[in-house]
């Protein structure tokens, strides 16, 4: 019962989004599909970086492992999706060990740079090593899709995002979630409180990779193609980081809000900003968010809610 009460906003959100296809165009739904995939990636980033403070600049590395695994399995071997997608998730979790090992020794900026380097390395590897397998610079296209049409894909991406969102949101409310955040605040003090921070970090990395793996595999089959430049792309990385940051890192709800906001904003601005100007937008939003809402929108809504509550009580 208590769980249901705390989930009431999720229920409202879920019902609202399920009704949306009745009122908006399929064009808008297609945009929202991108927002929902971005939300999955941003949540994956958030459960690792937002919670534990190990800032990943290499999330496309994880997403790329998932995408390429399922792409190659289906393209070359004709493996069915119900097998290739779980395989991609497992591969991503194994790949995340590449992130975890430096996290045993480095923190902060060093860790961020190492993850960025992994992304870059994979970008080049995918193009030169075994181009027959990976499709080289062009990548692989003509991959099988899970379902067809804007509406089914909208529901699929929303459903997956929603389940992941609720799951992670409940998780950060447990003692385990609190323990993960002690790593961000003071890892040494966490250890001397008796927390096995290595185990906790491994858990956070695996969970983050699990989510990135699901998102990456589904996204690849939604697009029907994968190419190094689309995945291991700084613009893609920026979108993930900014969605999480402007929404409010560490909150799970924040990255979802941030993903919808960023996707819709960029779509709205698209006619005015055809090319690399979008980087300016990334910079501008980040600055604005930093100055006016350093804890993200998530917090603005929280504050508004408190204000409204205070007004209500006064009357």
């Amino acid at each position: 019962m208590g769980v249901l009460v705390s989930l009431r906003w999720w229920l409202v959100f879920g019902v609202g989004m399920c009704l949306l296809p009745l009122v908006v165009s399929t064009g808008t739904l297609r945009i929202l599909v991108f927002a929902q995939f971005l939300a999955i990636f941003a949540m994956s980033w958030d459960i690792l970086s937002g919670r534990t403070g190990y800032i990943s600049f290499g999330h496309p590395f994880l997403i790329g492992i998932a995408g390429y695994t399922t792409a190659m399995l289906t393209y070359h071997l004709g493996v069915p999706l119900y097998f290739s997608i779980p395989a991609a998730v497992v591969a991503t979790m194994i790949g995340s060990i590449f992130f975890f090992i430096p996290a045993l020794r480095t923190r902060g900026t060093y860790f961020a740079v190492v993850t960025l380097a992994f992304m870059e390395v994979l970008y080049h590897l995918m193009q030169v090593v075994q181009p027959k397998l990976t499709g080289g610079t062009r990548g692989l296209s003509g991959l099988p899709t899970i379902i067809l049409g804007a509406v089914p894909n909208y529901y699929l991406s929303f459903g997956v995002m929603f389940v992941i969102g609720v799951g992670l949101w409940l998780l950060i409310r447990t003692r385990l979630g609190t323990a993960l955040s002690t790593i961000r605040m003071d890892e040494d003090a966490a250890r001397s409180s008796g927390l096995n921070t290595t185990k906790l970090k491994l858990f956070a990395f695996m969970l983050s990779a699990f989510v990135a793996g699901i998102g990456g595999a589904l996204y690849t089959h939604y697009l029907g193609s994968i190419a190094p430049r689309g995945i291991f792309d700084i613009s893609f990385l920026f979108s993930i980081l900014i969605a999480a940051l402007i929404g409010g890192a560490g909150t799970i709800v924040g990255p979802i809000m941030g993903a919808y906001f960023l996707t819709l904003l960029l779509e709205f601005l698209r006619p005015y900003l055809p090319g690399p100007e979008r980087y300016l937008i990334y910079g501008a939003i980040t600055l604005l968010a930093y100055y006016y809402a350093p804890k993200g929108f998530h917090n603005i809504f929280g504050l508004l809610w408190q204000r409204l509550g205070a007004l209500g009580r006064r009357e």
Partner: protein
Amino acid sequence: MTDLLEVRDLTKRFGGLTAVRNLGFSVSEGESLGLIGPNGAGKTTVFNLIMSELRQDSGELFFQGREISKYPTHARVKLGIARTYQVPRPFGEMTVTENIRMGMMPDDLWQMLTKGPQHDAERDIGKDVGFSEREVAMYPGELSMGNLRKLELARTIAAEPKLLLLDEVFAGLTVGEIAQISELLVEKRKQGLTYIMVSHDLRALAPLVDRVVVMSFGAIIAEGTFKEVIADKKVREAYLGQ
């Protein structure tokens, strides 16, 4: 009495500085030991070594007869050693009770996930160290120095240690707060807690310890009851010399 902790020939160097030099002492079960010495004597470094927050260059550490040098920090806590920090290090974005919660965490992730926090126990520990009902819901940023020290103590007590390392728990506390913490320590001792107390406040320390070890420049210069060491010439020189 058996030794709860034995420190044997411990040495720690920072570059050219030997912060701890061939140090050896032991604490028996139920005993309380004072560890004193002038600023920079190496007291906090000894605690860091016991907790594995620093690695010794040489020497051994025995806890309940077991050599623990290979144990990482959290494993030492699980064995039953806990410490407070001289400069309080609370988790800044957590309330007092949430900070205490971190001291009570199980080792198993599944239990962390499925078993809820013990709200009553957390609040009781908070009250034991002297927090009011209102204060246990506050964040570290809103607490006075005295309250931050209490929080350090509360979080370590929550881990139910057999051996507690207290680093300057009285600094910045009022006379009333010192009395309150002292009372709590006396109470905990009756329940079987062993502790090593570092304090510059010798008057507060004296009634709380059975025996005192005095350090200066990383080495032990005197050992005995409080009265004995205070009367010692080398000790007086070390304290006056600074």
